[in-house]
Each structure stands twice: as structure tokens, then as C-alpha cells.
């Protein structure tokens, strides 16, 4: 009789053990459990890009910077981004450091898209220097063009109210909480209304590039402020 008890028990035990191991294997196959965790990093290694910019002469020809200025710019660029390209995370980091009180990440995102003209997810030195060339040494037309490009998030040629609201909220986010007077919820919205009233001549709810440039050229304040950063470099 003892043998019978042992037999049943033995079978029970074996059954339990087999069941447990099978379930573990099944979960592993399904990918829910991973026993080794080094698979993720292998992919990252290969994607680290090394980008080398075009020659100095070419950049000199394409932009309005002198040779020395390009040298200074490149040194600063390469110092901060040794790999030669800026990806969005780094860009956000750098830009956020200038605005410690608020959250500059949203605006940095829009700015990144404005600089990344070929939309490949990273800003190389050429993109960087082209953008700067327009901003610092460009004509009023070019600057306004650039600004329009910044506001037009989906790059369809029209600025809608939603896009403008996004941009406005991003700008106000950079201010942070501690402002005087205290920022209210509807301040960005009101600001957008004012902007549209000014810019949208035909009241069709969107601002086109011509309306934008026209309106800005007629506004003295804006004209004056466009020349503000000319001696930056």
C-alpha cells in the first residue's frame, strides 16, 4: 500500500514540476520574460553616427559667415556635440539650460524642427550654420520667412489657430510659474486672438506667408526688433 501512495505522490510531483517549467518556457517564448537584458544596447551602438561637415570653403560660399566665424561656430558646436550631429534630446537639453525657470522642451521641439530642414531627425553642422546665417545675416524677408516656417508646424504653408496656440503655449511654458502678474490659463489664447486679428487680413482663419510678411513689414516694432540680434556673432 505504501508503494501505491508513493506512486501517486511521485506522479503528482513530477506533474507539478513539468507544468511549472513548461509555463516558464512559454512565457519566455512569448517574450514576456527575458532572461538576458543585453539585446537593447547592441542596437544603439551601431546607430551612433559620425558626421563630418562639408569643407570650410563650401560653407563659406553657402552662408554669409566669414571663415573665422565659421571656425568659432564649429568649435563650439563640436565641443558640445562631439559626434557632429545634434539629436533632439541634446537640443532640448542645451536649450533648456538657458531657461531654467520654465519648461523649454516644447519650444525646443519646434525650434529643432525649424532647424532640421531635411527632416532627418538630427541637426548637422550645415543645418545649424544655415539657420544661423539666415537669422543673423539674412534679409528681413528671409528672417520673416524663417519665422513663418517656425510657426507652421506641419509645413503646409498656412498657420492655423491651433498651430499658433501650440507655439504660444510653448513660449509661455518657457516663462515658468513664477511670473508677475501670474499667468492665467487663457493668456496664450488671448495672445493668439490678438495675433490673428493683426495678421489675418481676409479673416479666413489661417495666416498665409504673404499676409504674414505684409503685416510684419508694416509693423514698426517688429521691424525694429528684427535687427536686434545682428551683432551677436
Amino acid at each position, binding site marked *: 500500500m505504501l508503494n501505491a501512495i*508513493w506512486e501517486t*505522490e*511521485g506522479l*503528482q*510531483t513530477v506533474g*507539478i*514540476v513539468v507544468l511549472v517549467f513548461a509555463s516558464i518556457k512559454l512565457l519566455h517564448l512569448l517574450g514576456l520574460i527575458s532572461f538576458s537584458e543585453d539585446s537593447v544596447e547592441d542596437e544603439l551602438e551601431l546607430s551612433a553616427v559620425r558626421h563630418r561637415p562639408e569643407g570650410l570653403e563650401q560653407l563659406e560660399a553657402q552662408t554669409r559667415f566669414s571663415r*573665422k566665424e565659421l571656425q*568659432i*561656430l564649429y*568649435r*563650439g*558646436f563640436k*565641443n*558640445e556635440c562631439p559626434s557632429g550631429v545634434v539629436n533632439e534630446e541634446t537640443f532640448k537639453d*542645451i*536649450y533648456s*539650460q*538657458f531657461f531654467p525657470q520654465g519648461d523649454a522642451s516644447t519650444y525646443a521641439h519646434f*525650434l529643432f524642427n*525649424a532647424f532640421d530642414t531635411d527632416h532627418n531627425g538630427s541637426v548637422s553642422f550645415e543645418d*545649424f550654420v544655415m*539657420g*544661423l546665417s539666415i*537669422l*543673423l545675416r539674412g534679409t528681413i524677408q528671409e*528672417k*520673416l520667412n*524663417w*519665422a513663418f516656417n*517656425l*510657426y507652421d508646424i506641419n509645413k503646409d504653408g498656412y498657420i492655423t489657430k491651433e498651430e499658433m496656440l501650440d*507655439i*504660444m503655449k510653448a*513660449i509661455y511654458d518657457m516663462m515658468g510659474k513664477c511670473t508677475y502678474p501670474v499667468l492665467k490659463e487663457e493668456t496664450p489664447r488671448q*495672445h493668439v486672438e*490678438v*495675433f490673428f486679428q493683426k495678421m489675418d487680413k481676409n479673416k479666413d482663419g489661417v495666416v498665409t506667408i504673404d499676409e*504674414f510678411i505684409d503685416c*510684419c513689414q508694416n509693423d514698426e*516694432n*517688429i521691424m*525694429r*526688433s*528684427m535687427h*536686434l*540680434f545682428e*551683432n*551677436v*556673432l
Partner: protein
Amino acid sequence: MAAGVAAWLPFARAAAIGWMPVANLPMPVAPTEKNKRQDELIILNVSGRRFQTWRNTLDRYPDTLLGSSEKEFFFNEETKEYFFDRDPDVFRSVLNFYRTGKLHYPRYECISSYDEELAFFGIVPEIIGDCCYEEYKDRKRENAERLMDDQEDNKDAKLPNMTFRETMWRAFENPHTSTMALVFYYVTGFFIAVSVITNVVETVPCGSSPNMKEVPCGERYTVAFFCMDTACVMIFTVEYLMRLFAAPSRYRFMRSVMSIIDVVAILPYYIGLVMTDNEDVSGAFVTLRVFRVFRIFKFSRHSQGLRILGYTLKSCASELGFLLFSLTMAIIIFATVMFYAEKGSSSSKFTSIPASFWYTIVTMTTLGYGDMVPKTIAGKIFGSICSLSGVLVIALPVPVIVSNFSRIYHQNQRADKRRAQKKARLARIRISKTGSSNAFLHSKRNGLFNEALEFTVRPEEQRLSKSTSLLESQHHHLLHCLEKTTVSAHALPEPNQSTNHEFVDEQYYQQSYLEAGLQSYPSRSPSLSSQDGVTGTCCTRRSKKHHTPLPNASAPAHMQPLTHTHQQCLQELSTIHIQPLSTSRSSLNMRVDEPAPLNCQSSQITTAIISIPTPPVTTPEGDAHLPAGPTHQNVVKVSAL
């Protein structure tokens, strides 16, 4: 703001153009950059190794030496470079900080030299990058602990004006300071041992009387044990009260661990005294007796190892907590499994999960009493898994605790070793100090020599003066001026002679001191003992000279103020000598303002001098020196090293 990011400021400003069309108000005027110069390379010559960098790189941190105009002080006009006489290896890290914005701490570098370099270049160590910060902090902590050990060694010096209370406290804390304290220390230790042994022996069944069963000794010889207990508690109480009286801060003393142990050790006795009459609480009284065993913790005052162990356990509290927590988790899991595995078998001891706890604990710690064993196969399998995992779980946090213990233990060993070597170290310090004071006295002799002969032989003077370097001669001149400055405060037998004080060697001073019979006068300066060089010549010469105007009975009266200022002069000498030696070695910080009893016994070290027979030269300065016996003329002493 990090340095590299400063390079991006032009970009951020340019991007601000994006806000312009949106803004309603006019923008403020931009700051203009006056005298905008082109970026230039500057050369930094650090002890011969040339580093070059852009000027802008250094300007990133304007509140450091290299970033501000402070570096102009180091500008070398001829070579048009900035010269720093510092360590070039550490400078590498400093310059990298400007370049990358991150300060790194090289592991092979000594922490104090690194700190000094950082302080020199005006960089705050807190900005060390995360990669190196842990290492830096660890090394700094180790260094601080080491220095603190050195400081503590100096605490043993006895201050003469301690109150009785302070003396007592010092006797309690450092038993090796006086014999009384040592006696007290051993007596208390003995009584602790006696008390503990009494407690143990009390429960041993000793000799059964024919009519009764075996009784423990405690009940057989009640009176004897009671007397023993009373005596011990009396001693402990007296000791505790004395400590309480002597403690500098009673409140803090009462909160300290040792005092709580003391109280817990003696309280049961007093409670027992009060409560013996009441029969109901006699059970509680018996429980109280358990607390008597805490007397054994009083040994931790006597044993350093126990203290280290206690400190280790305290510092590893988190690891111990983790060990306990993981063990608890494992116990619950395995107890549950065992219970359900053994549920089926008949007459199983695993009646409930808490009942299985005992089995699990015994198995995991590999004790295996065998009072509960699984009978089913599943139970046996899980039981074996349980014991294997028990070994692992317990083995994991143990190395952490061990390494902590090892670190603390080695620290203590180091402290003890240093204490043992202290004597040899002080001896070495004394020699080096003697050397410099010797040099002064030696050159003074030569100098006096020269002054007498200066109108006769020029080359001789030059030859003699060449033997001392410029630094030394300037130093000696300084000490000389000090001598001249001090003027005797009292009128002296020879008023036509201007008198001042002079630096003398200790031997001469001791002799004269003893002769003056002023042994009880509290003298100053522990470094007196360091001036063991005897240039017997100048003193013997002077003593010989002034032997003739033998001081009358009034001289001893005058000697008192003279000796006092003497001590001050000597002390001045010693302070001057100490400063250059001990700037970086804190252990050599002899606190010279702390008066120490003059050790009239001969010091352990004397250096060899041979006195030269002195010509009877009249010295320009008169001395109101103390007469000394002619005994120490032409003395030859041999180094007793």
C-alpha cells in the same frame, strides 16, 4: 550654466527672432560688446610644460583664477606667457575643466594635493562631475578621518588648570592617563566579571541535600549571593554617579548608550528591593533578573573590539535590514509551499503555515534539528530547494558587513599604530627643529665672530658668510633683530650697559634655571625640549665673561622676570621654527601656546657638539645673563640617538 553651453548662447539669441512677430511690445536694446577682440591663443607654462588654449575658453569661468584678471599677476613679459609654478599633472584636470565644463578627479592623485591645486586656481571642488564625485568624496572622508585621529591623539595633553571635575572626566575617559584611573578601570572591570559570574553560578544546581531535590546554588546560599550582588551594584552605582558628576554635559551623558547600559544594569536590583514584599509581581521580578545580564555590556568600555563590533553593526543597519527582509520573504514562501505539499500526508507535523515557519527557518539556516521533516516526495524536493536557497540568501549581505567591519577595524589599528609611533615621530620632529635652531646659534657665534673681526679681515668674513644661504642669513638676521628688540624690564646692576635678551640653548637655560632655584615656576613652550643643540661656546664664553661681575644676592630676584621673557624668546624661536615645518602636516601642530611643564630631566636626544676654546672677545652687546657654573665649559656631548 555649463561652459560648452555658453558657446551656444549666440544660437539661442539668434533663435529669439522667432518670438519677434508674436511680441506686442518693443524689445529692449541688446547689449553691445565693446572692444570685441579676436580670439587668441594663450600659452600657460606650468612648471615647464606648455599648455595652450583659446582665451575664450578660459573666460568661460570668470570667477576662477584663469578666467579673471588674476592671471595677469603670473604673466611673464619676456616670454609672453603665463607661468605657474605648480604641478603640471593636476593642471591637466584643471584645464580640462575649462575645455569640457566637467571637472574630473584622477584616482592616482593624492587628495590633499588635488585640493590644494583646486584652491589655488579658485575652483570649487563641488563641481566635480558625477563620474568622479563618489571617489573624491570617499577619499576625502578617509583623509579627514585620518587627520581626526591625529587630532585626537593630541587631546591627551593635560591642561594644568583643569578643575577637579574635568580631571575626573578625563580619568574616566582615558584610563591610561593616571594610575588612579587605571586602578579604577581594573577594579570596575573585575567587579563586572564577578557580577556576571555570580549570575551564572546562581543557576547551577549544586549539591543536593538528602531530603530535597537538586536546588540551584542561588536558592541554597541566598544570603551570600545577595551580599555579592549588593556589593557589585553598590560599586556600579557609585561609578555611575561619579561619571554623572564629572560629565561635562550631563544631559548628553545621560542620553549616551553606555549610561543607559549602566542604568539598565543596576535598576533591576533596586526595583527588586522595592518589590520583594509583593507576591503578585514576583513573577515580573524574576523577569527583571534577566536584565542583570546586561552588565556584560559594560565590558564594552574596556574592550575596543566590542565597540568596533557595535559600531559596525550600527553602520551596516541597512544591510542587516535587507537580510532580515529577504529572509522573511523566503520563509513565508517556503512555509506556504511546504504546508501545501505536506497537507496530503497523514500525521504530518506541518499543521499550519505558521507551524511550517519553524521548519523553514531551521532548514534555511542549515540547522536541521530534525523535529519536523517532510514525508511526501514533493515536500522533500521543496525542502531541499529551501535549504539551498537559504544558504544563498544568507551569504549575500554578509560580505558587505564584513567589509565594513574590516574597514573600521583597520582604521582603529592604524590609530593604535600611530599612537605607538608617536614617540619616534616626535623625536624626528625634534631633530629637525634642533637643526634649525642650531644653525641660528651657530651662525650667531660666527656673526659675533665676524663683527669683532670685521675691521681686520674681509675675506674671512666672506668665507664664513658663504656657508649660510641667503635665506638662512636673512632668517638669522630676523631673529637677531628680535633679540635686540626685547629689552630687560628691570634695572640691572650695570645700568650703563644696554641689555637685551638672547636666544640660548636649552642646556644652558636648564642649568641656570636649576641654579636659580625656580623649579616651581611654570615655564612655557613644549618646544623647549626641542632645542637640544648645545653650542656651548657662546654661552660659555658669555658666562665666562660675566663671571666677574658676579651677581649679588639681588640677582636671583631679577632672574624671575628674565627667565620669563627668556621663555618667551625661546618660545618665539620655536614658533618661528614650527611654522614652516608643519603647514601641511597637522600632526606636527604643537600648540605652543599651551604651557607644558618643563621637563628638567635631560631630553632623550642631544646632538653632538664640540666646543671650541673661545678667545676672550668683548661682545658689543651686553647680556644680563644668568651666571652659570663653570662646569659646562668645553663640554663634549655625544648624540644619544
